[in-house]
């Protein structure tokens, strides 16, 4: 087990290094950020001064080496446009994104698993078919368009929910959160639903497929023969057995939720790190883009590691494969 963890950590570090080079080289190609950041009427001397101040006159490999050296101490450069450390900028925005993603995941779980269970128990009933048709639609709907339509219906036509921003935030353990007061909650509802829709469809399909298989197993027949009520069979016996793949997928999908939050945040002007990324791309704020991607990569590496470990804890059968890997 320890060997497995160490091996995975080493792999993760290699992945991080590869990504950092790719990103740095990629972002370097975009062009000269000076053109965008400096007043177009600036003279040659001023441009040269700014270039030197930002370190853009150094050869590329020196810039990368500096970047890497600083990255190891948690310093990923300062934002060109806001002149604050890029990491700080992203970490400030992170709670908003995490809150949104957690809320969306919660919605997907609380709706998706029960609906999937229902659809899996009676696959031929009309309501099961309706659920499945809905999930196909949820898969096909482009997230950004659903967001627009939500705004159109609930903000423009009905005027029930606000369409932009985070609303009032409350301080919880030193972090600003929206879900603890009514105003913040109304702001959170639409973006979270928008983000949840795709994962909801995924969870419905996954739970349904797993339930259908589990319902044919002997232990369900035995539980039935014992005369257990259906609620107990499904709620205890079936659910326990299908939970392993579901937990894995939930873990893995959490990372992709944070990535997809980029789209939702842009639509609902949610002040998270996804919106920060898009804003930074628009003004070619190189350090912020690089810092964002590296932080996301770290996040993914950690999530993948945790999911792998959890998987082997939940299911003893997997430990063998892990030990061999």
């Amino acid at each position, binding site marked *: 087990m320890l060997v497995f963890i160490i091996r995975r950590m080493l792999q993760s570090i290699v*992945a991080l290094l*590869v990504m950092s080079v790719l*990103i740095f080289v*990629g*972002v*370097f*190609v*975009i*062009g000269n950020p000076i053109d965008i950041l400096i007043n177009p009427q600036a003279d040659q001397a001023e441009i040269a001064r700014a270039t030197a101040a930002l370190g853009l006159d150094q050869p590329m490999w020196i810039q990368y080496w500096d970047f890497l050296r600083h990255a190891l101490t948690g310093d990923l450069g300062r934002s060109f446009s806001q002149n604050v450390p890029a990491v700080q900028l992203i970490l400030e925005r992170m709670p908003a994104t995490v809150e949104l993603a957690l809320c969306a995941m919660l919605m997907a779980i609380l709706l998706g698993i029960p609906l999937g269970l229902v659809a899996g128990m009676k696959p031929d009933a009309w309501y099961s078919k309706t659920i499945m048709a809905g999930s*196909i*639609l949820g*898969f*096909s*709907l*482009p*997230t*950004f*368009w659903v967001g*627009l*339509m939500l*705004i*159109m219906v609930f*903000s*423009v*036509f009905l005027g029930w929910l606000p*369409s932009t921003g985070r609303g009032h935030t409350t301080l919880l353990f030193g972090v600003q959160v929206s879900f603890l007061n009514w105003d913040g909650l109304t702001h959170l509802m639409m973006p979270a639903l928008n983000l949840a829709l795709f994962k909801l469809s995924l969870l419905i399909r996954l739970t349904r497929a797993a339930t259908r298989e589990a319902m044919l197993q002997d232990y369900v027949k035995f539980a039935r023969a014992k005369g257990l009520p259906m609620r107990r069979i499904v709620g205890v016996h079936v659910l326990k057995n299908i939970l392993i793949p579901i937990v894995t997928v939930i873990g893995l999908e959490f*990372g*992709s939720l944070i*990535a*997809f939050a*980029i*789209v939702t945040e*842009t*639509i609902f002007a949610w002040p998270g790190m996804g919106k920060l*990324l*898009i804003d930074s*791309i*628009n003004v070619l704020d190189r350090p912020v*883009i690089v810092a964002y*991607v590296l932080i*996301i*990569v770290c996040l*993914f590496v950690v999530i*993948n590691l945790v999911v792998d470990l959890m998987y082997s804890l939940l299911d003893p059968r997997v430990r063998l494969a892990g030990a061999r890997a």
Partner: protein
Amino acid sequence: MSSADVESPFKRVAADFAESRLALVGLATLILILIVAVGAPWVSPQNPYNLATLDIMDSKLPPGGHSLDGMTFWLGSDDQGRDMLSAIFYGLRVSLGVGILATVIALAIGLAVGLVAAWSGGWVEVVIMRLVDLQLSFPSILIALVLLASLGQGVDKIVIALITVQWAYYARTVRGVALVERNKEYIEAATCLALSTPRILFHHLLPNVMPPLIVIATVQVAHAIALEATLSFLGLGMPITSPSLGLLIANGFTHLMSGKYWISLYPGLALLITIVSINLVGDQLRDVLNPRLQK
């Protein structure tokens, strides 16, 4: 065995496919969309990008409104006085074109890489599959965003981004199938005949690897179209000169708040119908081409 007993594979696939009415509806819709997309210059009521035919006085008319010279805007007009129906036809052309082109190229690359990995084995396979795993552990939208952030805008850039996002799926699938197929007797027979490696790979192995790939490629076209629309919506996709459906929707977003819903709604519906019909066809193809479900 007489030849009459042998059904051609295409006939069998077609007959199985037709068993699902929903899939047939999807196919019919898809064909209609393709015809409209290819024939956009001939079926559109207006050339939406010929500035001479546009009149700013006709801007933001609701669906069914009439222009000053008597033309009916069935789906309304946008802020430039452009007929939305025509804009959607032209947008479909761009979206489908980009999606299909990117998928075909990615398929070719993934096929080649996957076959090489499966056939050569050893460190070549390890390196390729590590790369595939690494890429697949990140969401496609993130990879595409970072790529576009560094490459800049343009049709070619977005096609490159869509190819980069997709090739790994094909490579992994091809390798998986090819590993199973290479141990079968027909490959052994071909090897015994001392046929050249390219001939075995492309004449013998390739046709047997294709069915699962066709299924993935169908669904991937829908993914590519949706991803392109998302990127265009974020302002990182297609340039304003060749507006895809995503760009039309983004354009409508600015007018949504004032209740002018049609500029965003209808391009979105067109996008949705396209994606759903592709998915319906893909789902049915998966069942038809899956040997485990064959009677």
